[in-house]
C-alpha cells in the first residue's frame, strides 16, 4: 500500500514538473506586455523596458522558466507582479475559501446524491421519475441564475445569510457556516443532480447482479441487502464520478465566488490569468495539479477499499 502511494506520488511529481513547464510556455506565448500594463499606456518605452527587465521578462522564456523552477523547488513561489503579494501567502489566503466550498459541496453531494440515487434505484416508479426530473432540472438550470435567486431571496430579502464575503472557520465556526451555506447550495444543485443519476444507475446495475438474488434467496431483508451490499458495490463507480466532480468544481467555483464576493482560488485564477501574472498563475497551476493528483489517489484508495478486486497488490 505504502509502496503504491509512494509510486503514485512520484508519478505525480513528474506530472507536476511537466505541467509546470507546459504551462509556463503556454502563458508566455501571448507576450502580454506586463510592464506596459503595470505602467499604463502613456509610459515611455524605456520605462516599460526597465520594468520588464526588473521582472526578468527580458530573458528567454526557457531561462525564465529555469529561474522560476529553481526558486519554486526551494519553496519560493515569488511575488505577484500586479499586487506585490507573496505568492505562497496569496494562494494560502484564498485556498481555505475554495477548499471550504469544495468540501461543503462534496459533503452535501455525497449525502444527498446517495440518498436520492438509492431511493430512485431501489424504488423505481414515481421516486425514480422524481429523481430523474430533479436531475434534469438541476443540470439544465443556468448556474448563475440559481445563484442570483439564492442571494436575492435568502441574503438580500430574508437576511438569513450574508450576501458576500467569507469568514474563516478558525475565526468563527458559525460565521464560516453562514458565509459558505449559500455558495455551497448553489454549487450543490448541479452536482447533486449529476451524481445522483450516477448513483441511481450504479444501484440499478448492482441490483441486477446475480449475488443480490442469492442474498435474497438466503432470506436477508431487502434493506440490509441494499445498504450493505448494493450500496457498497454501487459506491465505487459513484465515487469516481464524485472525484471528477470535485476536480471540476475548481473551475465551477469561479462564478459562485464572483457573485458572492468570495476571495477564492476560482476567481483568483480568472483575474490573474487575464492579467498574465505568471508567478501567481504558476502557483495556481501547481496547486491544481497537486489537488488533482491527491484526489485521484484518494479516490483510487477508497475504490480499492470498496472493491477488493480493484486493489493493488
Amino acid at each position, binding site marked *: 500500500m505504502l509502496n503504491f502511494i509512494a509510486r503514485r506520488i512520484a508519478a505525480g511529481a513528474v*506530472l507536476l514538473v*511537466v*505541467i509546470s513547464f507546459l*504551462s509556463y510556455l*503556454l*502563458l508566455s*506565448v*501571448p507576450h502580454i506586455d506586463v510592464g506596459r500594463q503595470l505602467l499604463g499606456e502613456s509610459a515611455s518605452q524605456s520605462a516599460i523596458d526597465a520594468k520588464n527587465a526588473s521582472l526578468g521578462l527580458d530573458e528567454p522564456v526557457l531561462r525564465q522558466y529555469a529561474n522560476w523552477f529553481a526558486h519554486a523547488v526551494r519553496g519560493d513561489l515569488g511575488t505577484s507582479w500586479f499586487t506585490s503579494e507573496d505568492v505562497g501567502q496569496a494562494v494560502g489566503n484564498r485556498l481555505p475559501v475554495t477548499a471550504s466550498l469544495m468540501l461543503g459541496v462534496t459533503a452535501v453531494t455525497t449525502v444527498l446524491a446517495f440518498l436520492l440515487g438509492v431511493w430512485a434505484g431501489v424504488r*423505481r*416508479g414515481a421516486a425514480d421519475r422524481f429523481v*430523474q426530473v430533479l436531475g*434534469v*432540472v438541476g*443540470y*439544465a438550470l*443556468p*448556474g*448563475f*441564475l440559481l445563484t*442570483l435567486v439564492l442571494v436575492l431571496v435568502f441574503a438580500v430579502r430574508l437576511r438569513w445569510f450574508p450576501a458576500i464575503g467569507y469568514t474563516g472557520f478558525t475565526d468563527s465556526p458559525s460565521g464560516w457556516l453562514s458565509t459558505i451555506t449559500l455558495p455551497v447550495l448553489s454549487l450543490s444543485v448541479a452536482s447533486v443532480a*449529476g451524481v445522483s443519476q450516477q448513483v441511481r*444507475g450504479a444501484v440499478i446495475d448492482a441490483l*441486477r*447482479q*446475480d*449475488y443480490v*438474488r*442469492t*442474498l*435474497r*434467496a*438466503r*432470506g*436477508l*431483508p*431487502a434493506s*440490509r441487502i441494499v445498504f450493505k*451490499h448494493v450500496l457498497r*458495490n454501487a459506491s465505487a463507480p459513484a465515487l469516481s464520478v464524485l472525484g471528477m466532480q470535485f*476536480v471540476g468544481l*475548481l*473551475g465551477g467555483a*469561479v*462564478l459562485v465566488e464572483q457573485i458572492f464576493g468570495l476571495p477564492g482560488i*476560482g476567481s483568483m*485564477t*480568472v483575474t490573474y*490569468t*487575464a492579467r498574465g501574472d505568471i508567478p501567481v*498563475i504558476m502557483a*495556481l*497551476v501547481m496547486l*491544481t*495539479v497537486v489537488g*488533482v493528483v491527491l484526489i*485521484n489517489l484518494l479516490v483510487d484508495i477508497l475504490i480499492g477499499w*470498496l*472493491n*477488493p*478486486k480493484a486493489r493493488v497488490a
Partner: protein
Amino acid sequence: MSTGRTLRRVLRNPLGGLSAALLLLIVAAVLLAPVIASQDPGASSLSEAFAGPSGDHPLGMDSAGRDILARILYGGRTTLGGALLALAIALALGVPTGLVAGYRGGRFDSAANWTVNLVMALPAMVVLLASRAILGPDVHVLMIVLGVLVAPSFFRLVRGIVANVRGELYVDAAKVSGLSDTRIIARHVLTVVRGPIIIQVALVAGIAIALQAGLEFLGVGSGSTATWGAMLNEAFQNIQRAPRLILWPGLALGLTNCALVLLAGAVRDALEDQTPRPARRRRARPAPEPAESADSAAPRAALLSVRGLTVAYARPDGTDKEVVHGVDLDVRPGEILGLVGESGSGKTQTAFSVLGLLPEGGRVTRGSITVNGRETAGLRERDHRALRGRTLAYVPQEPMSNLDPAFTIGSQLMEPVRHHLGLGRKEAADKARELLHLVEIPDPDRTLRLYPHEISGGMAQRVLIAGAMSCDPELLIADEPTTALDVRVQAEVLDLLRRLRDERGLGVLLVTHNLGVVADVCDRVAVMNAGRIVETGTTEQILGSPRDPYTRTLLAAVLDDAPARAPWQPREARTVTA
C-alpha cells in the same frame, strides 16, 4: 440489438420521444434561421432597444435593439455548432485511443494513460484563458480546447469498459474463431461501449453549452457573435432594466440541456434494459387464481408441491406474456427431483416461483405452491422471505457472479446465520468454519478471509452450497449448480448434494439440462418443454423408457454428444435465464 429496435424503443419511451422531438425541433429551427427570422441577428436599431414583442419581432428586442428571435436562432447555430465541434474533437481523440488502450493494454495503454492524467490535471480555466489569449476570442477556439480537455473522459470510459470486456468469454471465443482484432473491436467491443458513450456525449454537449454561458459571464466571450451564452450574459447585464431578456436564451439553453439528458437516459434504457420495464404494481398484485390442471388430483407431497403453476411477464403494452403454463411438481424430504429441459423451457422460472424471486415484471398468475403444506403462491414478500434461508435455499448456476465481490467469504457466510439464527460474531465464525468443512473445503480458516475473486470456481460453488445450507434448510433449489464447473469438480459437487440428501434428509429441486447429472443423482425426474411438464417419473423410468417424444429427443441429443447449450453466450443475453 439492432439500431432500428433501439431507436423504436427510445421513441416509445415517452420522455425519450418527447426530448428527441424537442431536439429535432430546435435543430430544425436553428437550421432554418434564415427562413424564420425576419432580420439579421446583428442588425441593430438602438432606438428600439428593450422593445417588447411585436408583429415584426415576436420575441421583442434586446439591449442593443436586435431581434431576439433572430439572435436565438442564429445564436443556436454557433452554440450547438460549437458543442458539436467540442464533441467531435473529444470523440475523435478519446474513443479510438480508449479502444486501443483498453484492448491492447501494454505500452500504448501506459503512454495514453499518462497523457490523459496530464490533461486531466491541467487547470481547465487557465488553459482556456491562455488559449484564448493566444488564439483569439472565438467561440470555436474555446470549443476546440474544451474538446481536448474533455477527451480524457471518453478515453477513460471506453478504456475501462473495453479492459473489462477483454477478458470476457465471448471476446475470447471470437479470438479463438480467428477474427481479426479490428473486427472483434468493431463487432463485439463497440457494441458494449456505445451505450455509455451516448450518455457521455449528451453530458459533454450539455457541459459545452453551459460552459459557453459561463465563460461569457466571466467576460471571456465570443466577441460579437451571437450565442445563447452571450445572450444570457447580456440579459444578466440588464437584469434590472429588463429581466425578461433572460427568458428566451435561458429557455433555449435549459430545454436543450434537458432534452439532451433525457434522450441520453432513454437511449441508455433502450440499450441496457432488455427486459421491458412494466409499471410496478407492488401492492395491487392480483393473487394467483386456483389451479385448474387436470393432474391436480395426484396426492401432494409434504415438502414441496406445485400445482397448475403459470408464470407471466408483463409487456410494456400492459398485456402479459405467459412463459410457464400449468406446471405440477412434487419434492419429498430426502428426495432429489431433477427438473430437466432446454434453455427457455421455463424450468428456471418455475424454480424462482418457488423461491418467490421472479425477476422484475414476472409473477405467478395461476396455481398453487405449497411448502410444508403452506400455500406460498401470492404470499407477501415479508412472509416469503421468512421461508427463505431456513426452509428454502438456493444454489445458483454461475458461482462467481453469485458472490458479492466486495465482501470476504467469511462475511458472506456469517451474514445469514447471524441474521436468522441470531448468532454472535464468534459463534457465526465458528458456524461458517463448520459449513466450509461440511462442503469439504480444505483450510477453512484461510478461505474465510479470502475474497471471491481469490478462489476458484469449484470452490466458489461449494461456498454457495455452504451458504445455502447455513441455516439448515429443508428444500434446496439448485439451478444448474454444476454447469459452470469442469467435470471433476462437477462430480464432487454432485457427491456433496447426494451426501446432504442422505445425511440430512434434504429435499432437492435440481434444475438442469444435463441428463448425465440427472442419471447420477436424481431420484425422480420431471421433463419440461415450452413451459409445460411433459413427463414425470423415476429416473429409471424416464431414462430407460421415455414415453414423451420430447424426452426421447433429449436423450438422443445426449447420445449424439451434442452440447445441449451453446458453449458461450454474450453476457447481455444471459440476464434473463429461462
